């Protein structure tokens, strides 16, 4: 049979979550009768399955076979212009023709009007086939931002081009001196005779050569900080030059550009001064979820390569998959992938709910309270997911290469590419360390508790013992969190926040997967294996936090640093 990336666990997870409120809202309560509107939930599910199956076919049989060539050739830079590898062009052309470029955009622009949860499965499958392609495919996020915050003229002009695959985009945010700290952005936006012009330099811009860019720029003269920044829509012409593209460790198919704007004409998007605090935050949240899907896709590809190799490779008279050292690693990899996938879809759903309330608010419905709650959930789960998925992807790629032994270190097998590609996921769109900063307030504020409670509220008949175990861990974790909170020293809390976020990820994934395994008996082995692993890891993390807290109580917060002096050059 032909391979297809729309695999069982992706299908099942999709069925596990109730998308109906989201789909109803997106489809005008199933009341439209035109040919390209959905008329019922069952019809929606049927179509989603069809289009995901088709995407899974494209990814497995068209994109994946081209990934090695894309990696080898990469995007190139000549005479001031960037060229994608031929195979990248073919991939984008194929996805465009098959109509997948405007996944979550409204149908009136040629989009598919999909819930984010569904579209994310496509992003995950594209990434599994070719991680670098996700960067180009996933940059539809900028179109989503235009769709959310742009004016009607901008939308009518830009969005159909995106949906039909006629243009690609970029989000031009970072600069040489403004990376993680976007408040430091200095590129100037100058208003002259009612028109805006951009002047300055942007660096590390994925696909900065794209025809349409969203540019974060300082529109308020003599200001510092985020409130002086606005968002601009820039369409390629000759007042912006590409200085160079970066030579990177991985994702070679995706060009990373340095751009110089020389009074380049642009249009304001939305309101002045809301560039960073509203639009970029929204843009980044979408991008963080997409990068999580990318990481998960790479992990799935690495796992599949490891399984394939372990079955084929014989040592000591048998396939190495029979060796405990090898199958133990594979079990860990599988449990990590499956539980993270559950977390990612849960987060997608949270973002879908948030978007739904925002749409309803726009139509005059009073959903302020719901929207506020949904925002809190999404802004806790999004960084938690990126933290989990991208670190997991690196670990899985590392172990997959390890299973290949010496062969894995060679370019002859795809696993070394996956290992290199995974490495960016926990850096861009906010490093793991920044995800911890974003997620920790949710852990400390009670968001973690309420999400755990919700996940554990599902009725259990088979897995009551597992339910009790997780409930006991939760009680213990909450106690630990309270103890940490009782320490008034901010540096200590910051110091242990990654341990707490890790605990939250482990426990929350257990709880989510529990509900899933209750309904799907075939997943119970994975649940039990994962839970045994969580038990040990949770205990270790807890001891570590407690020991540190004790030491800080006895010797002050300076003790965190004192046994380690970093030489200053």
């Amino acid at each position, binding site marked *: *049979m032909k391979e297809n990336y729309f695999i069982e666990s992706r299908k099942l997870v999709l069925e596990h979550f109730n998308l109906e409120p989201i789909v109803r809202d997106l489809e005008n309560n199933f009341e439209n009768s035109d*040919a*390209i509107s*959905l008329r019922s939930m069952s*019809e929606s599910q*049927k*179509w989603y399955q*069809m*289009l995901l199956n*088709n*995407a899974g*076919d*494209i990814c497995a049989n*068209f994109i994946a076979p081209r990934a090695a060539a894309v990696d080898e050739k990469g995007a190139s830079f000549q005479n001031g212009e960037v060229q994608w590898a031929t195979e990248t062009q073919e991939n984008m052309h*194929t996805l465009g*023709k*098959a*109509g*997948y470029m405007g996944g979550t955009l409204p*149908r009136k622009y*040629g989009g*598919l009007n999909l819930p984010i949860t569904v579209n994310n499965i496509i992003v995950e499958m594209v990434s599994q086939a070719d991680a670098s392609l996700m960067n180009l495919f996933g940059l539809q996020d900028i179109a989503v931002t235009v769709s959310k915050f742009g004016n009607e003229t901008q939308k009518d002009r830009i969005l159909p081009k995106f949906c039909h695959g006629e243009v690609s985009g970029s989000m031009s945010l970072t600069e040489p001196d403004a990376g993680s700290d976007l408040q430091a952005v200095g590129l100037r936006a100058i208003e002259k005779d009612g028109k805006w012009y951009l002047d300055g330099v942007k660096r590390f811009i994925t696909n900065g050569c794209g025809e349409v860019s969203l540019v974060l720029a300082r529109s308020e003269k003599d200001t510092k900080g985020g409130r002086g920044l606005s968002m601009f829509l820039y369409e390629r012409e000759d007042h912006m030059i590409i200085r160079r593209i970066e030579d990177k460790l991985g994702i070679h198919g995706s060009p990373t550009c340095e751009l110089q704007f020389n009074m380049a004409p642009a249009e304001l998007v939305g309101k002045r001064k809301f560039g960073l605090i509203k639009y970029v935050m929204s843009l980044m949240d979408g991008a963080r979820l997409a990068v999580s899907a990318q990481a998960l896709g790479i992990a799935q590809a690495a796992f599949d390569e490891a399984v394939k190799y372990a079955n084929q490779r014989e040592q000591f008279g048998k396939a190495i998959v029979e060796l405990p050292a090898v199958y133990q690693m594979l079990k860990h990899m599988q449990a990590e992938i499956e539980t993270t996938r559950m977390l990612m879809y849960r987060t997608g759903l949270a973002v879908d709910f948030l978007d739904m309330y925002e749409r309803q608010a726009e139509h005059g419905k009073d959903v302020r309270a719901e929207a506020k709650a949904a925002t809190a959930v999404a802004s806790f789960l999004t960084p938690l997911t990126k933290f989990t998925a991208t670190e997991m992807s690196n670990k899985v790629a590392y172990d997959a290469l390890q299973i290949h032994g010496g062969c894995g270190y060679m370019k002859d097998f795809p696993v070394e590419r996956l290992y290199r590609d995974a490495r960016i996921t926990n850096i861009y769109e906010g490093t793991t360390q920044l995800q911890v900063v974003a997620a920790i307030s949710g852990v400390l504020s009670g968001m973690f508790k309420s999400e755990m409670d919700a996940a554990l509220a599902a009725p259990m008949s088979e897995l009551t013992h597992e339910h009790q175990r997780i409930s006991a861990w939760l009680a213990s974790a909450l106690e630990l969190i309270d103890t940490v909170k009782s320490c008034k020293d901010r540096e200590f809390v910051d110091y242990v926040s990654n341990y707490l976020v890790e605990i939250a990820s482990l426990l929350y994934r257990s709880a989510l997967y529990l509900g899933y395994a209750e309904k799907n008996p075939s997943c119970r082995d994975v649940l039990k294996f994962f839970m045994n692993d969580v038990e040990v890891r949770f205990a270790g993390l807890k001891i570590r936090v407690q020991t540190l807290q004790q030491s800080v109580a006895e010797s002050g917060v300076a003790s965190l640093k004192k046994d380690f002096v970093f030489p200053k050059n």
Partner: protein
Amino acid sequence: MRKVVVLAKQVPDTANIAADAMKEDGTVNRGALPAIFNPEDLNALEMALQVKEQLGCEVHVITMGPNTATAVLKHSLYLGADKVWLVSDRKFAGADTLATSQVLAKAIQHVGDVSMVFAGRQAIDGDTAQVGPQVANLLDFNLVAFATELKSVSAEHITVARDAEVQTEVIQAPFPVLITVSHEANSPRYPNATRMLKYFRDDIAIPTLDRETLNIPEELCGLKGSPTKVFAIKNIQLTGGAHQMYEGANDGIRALVRDIVKDYTEV
């Protein structure tokens, strides 16, 4: 507007064949095999869609078969066909290539104003490669068989490369023309997600053409109109290679005669 017709067939997936693939009477047991779009018909449809992209014509897909063959038509709509036709009648059952060609030729006339017809080189069940050429003959269309590349198309003619075994011929054919397309010609596109949404419902109306509508005499269609009689079916395993080339000189001819006399079969 200029119309282009594609002939498509739903076939048993002979790549995934099972033990009960044949019935006792030597006909194919269609129930035992998954039904798929005949692969080279997809290449024919792809060529038609490329012609459409250049000329802006209308692409019609015709299939002859039972109701289940609508799956092929729906897939054609997902890929980009403008209109589809199911040619179906109990009286068409048991048709050989000639009886099939009679019906398809009438269906093409029914569509009307057709300047180009594309068909797969051959179907993977019968493997005769006869239907396309017979239809061309019945309609008195120009014929190019075994096309391997679409070179160009204009308002007056189409230029394709065709495989002539030892060489490739490039042929410019005026309309009306029927072209049979080989799998080398292109890579069929993937279904379009929005088109799937538009056409996936069960209540999509697909026009059906029956014997009366097409006005075909009974003796020309189905088993009655089929001069082919299946005498017996045997499982044959070939022990020789797929094909053998001989030099056109004395030594080659001697070798050819020797090989013809030799028995390659093993029942």
